[in-house]
């Protein structure tokens, strides 16, 4: 068994792909640098992440694959699922080796898996766009804590930058402890020193703008009076709006 160890970054994965082709040996497992080697590992190669080599690998892939498929690979990477890097590695090798495009060969389990995981991540991006709820702070900053299951926040940022270009906002992923702050020009990645107080989903009263509580309660009353009692269907509601989002929604608190 051949094992490659790398630093679990996307550049690292691309460098591993480059190394595999230049060394003409293809790994069965991809591990992090500090993970213990499995039994029966014949050879272990440690990949040193290199910007130039990873860029070359990506350019090569871009020649082989169309732009939407490359975007799909990025989505799969952001899923952060346990074996997603090995899946991506297999997919990339297949794409490079095949004489014609494999992008539509959904009878291949890897191709189908990449498509399905990418669809899940893209759905999570959509849910972020749906269920982000800004709370206005006293300093005119619109703040929203989120906690997506996949790391889909970077994918949703362009939407918010376009839609809310006229206001300062900060969307913070409390699970991964980073977020994006938009200063009416560009969105930049930020990390807060302490986010313990955000886990409840609601900002502290002292930080909120004066009318924030009013609009939250107006929205809550509005959604409640919009419900048709004769048609109650809580299962359908949970299907469209899963419980894990509720702690950030004013209408559900």
């Amino acid at each position, binding site marked *: 068994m051949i094992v490659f160890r790398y630093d679990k970054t996307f550049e690292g994965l691309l460098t591993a792909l480059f190394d595999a082709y230049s060394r003409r040996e293809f790994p069965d497992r991809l591990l992090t640098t500090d993970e213990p080697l499995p039994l029966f590992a014949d050879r272990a190669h440690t990949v040193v992440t290199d910007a130039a080599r990873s860029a070359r690998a990506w350019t090569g892939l871009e020649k082989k694959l169309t732009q939407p498929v490359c975007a799909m690979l990025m989505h799969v990477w952001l899923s952060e699922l346990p074996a997603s890097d090995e899946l991506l590695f297999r997919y990339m090798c297949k794409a490079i080796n095949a004489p014609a495009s494999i992008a*539509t060969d959904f009878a291949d389990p890897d191709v189908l898996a990449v498509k399905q995981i990418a669809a899940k991540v893209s759905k999570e991006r*959509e849910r972020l766009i749906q269920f982000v*709820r800004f709370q206005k702070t006293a300093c005119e900053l619109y703040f929203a804590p989120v906690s997506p299951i996949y790391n889909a926040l970077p994918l949703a940022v362009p939407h918010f930058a376009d839609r809310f270009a006229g206001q300062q906002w900060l969307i913070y992923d409390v699970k991964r402890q980073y977020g994006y702050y938009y200063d009416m020009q560009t969105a930049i990645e930020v990390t807060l020193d302490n986010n313990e107080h955000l886990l409840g989903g609601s900002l502290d009263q002292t930080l909120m703008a004066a009318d924030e509580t*009013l609009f939250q309660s107006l929205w809550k009353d509005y959604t409640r009076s*919009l419900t048709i*009692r004769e*048609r109650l*269907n809580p299962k359908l509601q949970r299907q469209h709006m899963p419980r894990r989002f509720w702690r950030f929604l004013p209408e559900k608190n």
Partner: protein
Amino acid sequence: MNEQIQYKLTILAESAKYDVSCSSSGTTRKHRPGMTGSAEGWGICHSFTEDGRCVSLLKIMLSNNCIYDCAYCVNRRSNDIRRATLAVNELIELTLEFYRRNYIEGLFLSSGILRNADYTMERMVRVIKELRVIHRYNGYIHMKSIPGASRELVNEAGLYADRLSVNIEISKDENLRMLAPEKNHQSIFKPMFYIQQGVLASADERKRFRYAPRFAPAGQSTQMIVGATGESDKDILRLSTALYQRPSMKRVYYSGYIPVNTNDPRLPALKQVPLVRENRLYQADWLMRFYGFRADEIVDDASPNLDLEIDPKLAWALRHAEAFPVDLQKADPALILRVPGIGLKSAQLIVASRRHGHITVQTLAKMGVVMKKARYFITCRELPLLTVNELHPDEVRRALTEKKPSRKAADPNQLSILFPE
């Protein structure tokens, strides 16, 4: 002031909630400097109420006072309910504040009839004009056009709204006249026609002048109440087909009749909202819009109503066993779409991947095909040849509708344990 807004918002939302339409799709507008918001063509739902319906737009009435007396409507003048009217600036503030917090995708404005159709329409147009022109609002606006409103007002509304709609409510004219004495089909189809003319004229102008104003870029929609009068599904679907053939009509919504006015002798006494029938109508609607079915294939004179037990696509397949089995490896994509259990997405996947090689049953299941249904209608190397032609259509129907005994039901041979949980 705040309590008053809260009071009005609750009342007017209560009055507006029976309108089904809440889509915010059909227009894509990027942000423009100095303006608030944008619009996404795919439509975004921001919340879901406990009845499972989406909240995409701030669906609200300008006023729930009404001079009309429609039997099916909660806001009719003979009902003793709380009435309220929003001031223009209150509504605008609510819309913008909700929008900035990402609660909504835009505004859905309707109203009860005050004084007459034109007076009401003029007030509504004033709200959306002020939003667009003074507050530079760039998000989505859906506005109800009032039946009987004049052409000039519809034309002005189209300049500011993304989508306009007029509700047909009842698909037969005589039934509509019976339930809503002040309305008739002519007063409804006229504004619809004005909207269509406006959309076509603007599309033509934009071909020649790039920056000519857009007129209701997301087209128009309408709504029909199901189960309040004796119309069959055939009548309803035939009318929908006729509507979809018009160039600007994007959606027809179906709303299961909710008995809001229980003491009216003109309306049936329903125990339950006809939810299953409503669902079947939507399925039929999807078949017509995306799957290439015609209305007369789904319902005909022999069976004027949709089968409540099985979905319309399966019902069609069982009536037309001669069209099956379909060989997924070779068949025309249009025919693959007609197989029960195969939807748009899985049909696309099948057509794309069959060029590369043979498709197995396992792959089909992974692609999202509902094999429980589809297995009777396809041929595949791994499946035993036991299609709808070998079995009888009735046999397939029985196999698919048979209720499995639920796990919760007690086994008669088993004594229950009397320990509390």
